[in-house]
């Protein structure tokens, strides 16, 4: 008993002189929690950035499509449909490239030459050869891709990463068609 009393007194006296103040404990805790939150935030950000790759192994979005003389006036050409999802349409005045993605929900329409229209097999959206929609659930026309004559060899150069939307008035942009008259 005497043992515990004497040993009890010494640590109590020691603790009285070294007890931390309320303020120092709270500020220490605040720093600790902030550091923890920063650590967690950094981890989550790293993880999120991890999910967005810098390099993609996808087909190229631009390509050379041959010479204007390869395309007949008044025809919708389907030679690049499978590989690049592009229709090359030639009218008496111009050549333009339609992107073969239905503007309703993303299926690939078919060109029905006999009925002179593009028709989507998924929900029946219909477009004229210009790309303007006229039937079915789609709210807007097909999109056109940037098309130009390459200065190097005179071939048609189509760039799908640049799109032109009719409803935004972009079809009059000179990059959206090749003038042939």
């Amino acid at each position: 008993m005497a043992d515990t009393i004497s040993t009890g007194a010494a640590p109590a006296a020691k603790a009285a002189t070294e007890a931390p103040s309320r303020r120092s404990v709270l500020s220490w805790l605040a720093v600790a929690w902030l550091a923890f939150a920063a650590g967690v935030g950094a981890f989550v950000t790293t993880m999120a950035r991890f999910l967005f790759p810098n390099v993609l192994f996808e087909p190229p979005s631009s390509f050379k499509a041959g010479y204007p003389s390869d395309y007949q006036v008044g025809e919708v050409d389907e030679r690049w449909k499978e590989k690049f999802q592009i229709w090359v349409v030639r009218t008496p005045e111009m050549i333009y490239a339609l992107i073969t993605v239905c503007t309703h929900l993303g299926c690939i329409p078919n060109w029905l030459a006999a009925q002179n229209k593009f028709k989507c097999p998924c929900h029946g959206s219909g477009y004229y050869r210009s790309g303007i929609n006229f039937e079915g659930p789609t709210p807007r026309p097909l999109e056109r891709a940037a098309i130009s004559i390459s200065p190097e060899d005179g071939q048609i150069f189509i760039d799908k990463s640049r799109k032109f939307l009719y409803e935004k008035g972009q079809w009059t942009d000179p990059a959206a068609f090749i003038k042939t008259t």
Partner: protein
Amino acid sequence: MSLEKSWRRLQRAVVETQVWKSIFRVGIPNTNRKRVLAMLGNVVLHLHPVKTRKSGVKMRYTWCAGGMTFFLFLVLTFTGLLLMFYYRPTIEYAYGDMIDLREQVPFGVMREMHRWGAHAMVIAVWIHMFRVFMTGSYKPPREFNWNVGVVLLVLTLLLSFTGYLLPWDQLAIWAITVGSNMARATPLAGNEGPFSAQIAVNGVNLVTAGSDARFGLLGGRIVGANALLRFYVLHCVFIPLVAAFLMAVHFWRVRKDGGISGPL
């Protein structure tokens, strides 16, 4: 008579070995104390309540819909695990492996069981939700559990969505094309949605076709190899883990609020 005696002697000899006693600590649960100790001392059994209330087996009340959903989840986990031995989530092999599973692997109907089980689980989870609503089992103190249940419903539908892509057939590719195209239209996070153009630093758009929610979901701009692998990981690992955790919360809350179909 002597056969019974020697049988009893054999039993006693086995039960008194160190090996036996190290596994079965409590002995035959023939007193209430021993019954409780046997349940609480076992990692699998202690997840269940020690006693089942009479209200817990009222099938007319619960339709056993939640139980069915959980059972189907376990069936899907198990069949899905078996399917993983044969299925490779690459665009060269996915469809072929799925066909081979059906045709060449013995009991390849496992693939169909997984698919039908998925349909059944979605139906069961809706029935369960309907039942909980109709019996008012979402009212206080059970509101939090209702919310957990809604999140579980969304996770079930996401499991269906991610799993749908894995056969890599026409149905899969177009369904996911349509679904992921919707992600493009998300406000703020989708590059064709409202307010996405406003998120720009120094005139450089941060939310583009190559950096929006749809890109993150597919791992690319098209539904291709990256999308297949991502959906496979989501379907087999990530969403099941989150769902399992939330199910644990869901069942725990049921227990704590008085047991299944306990009086309101």
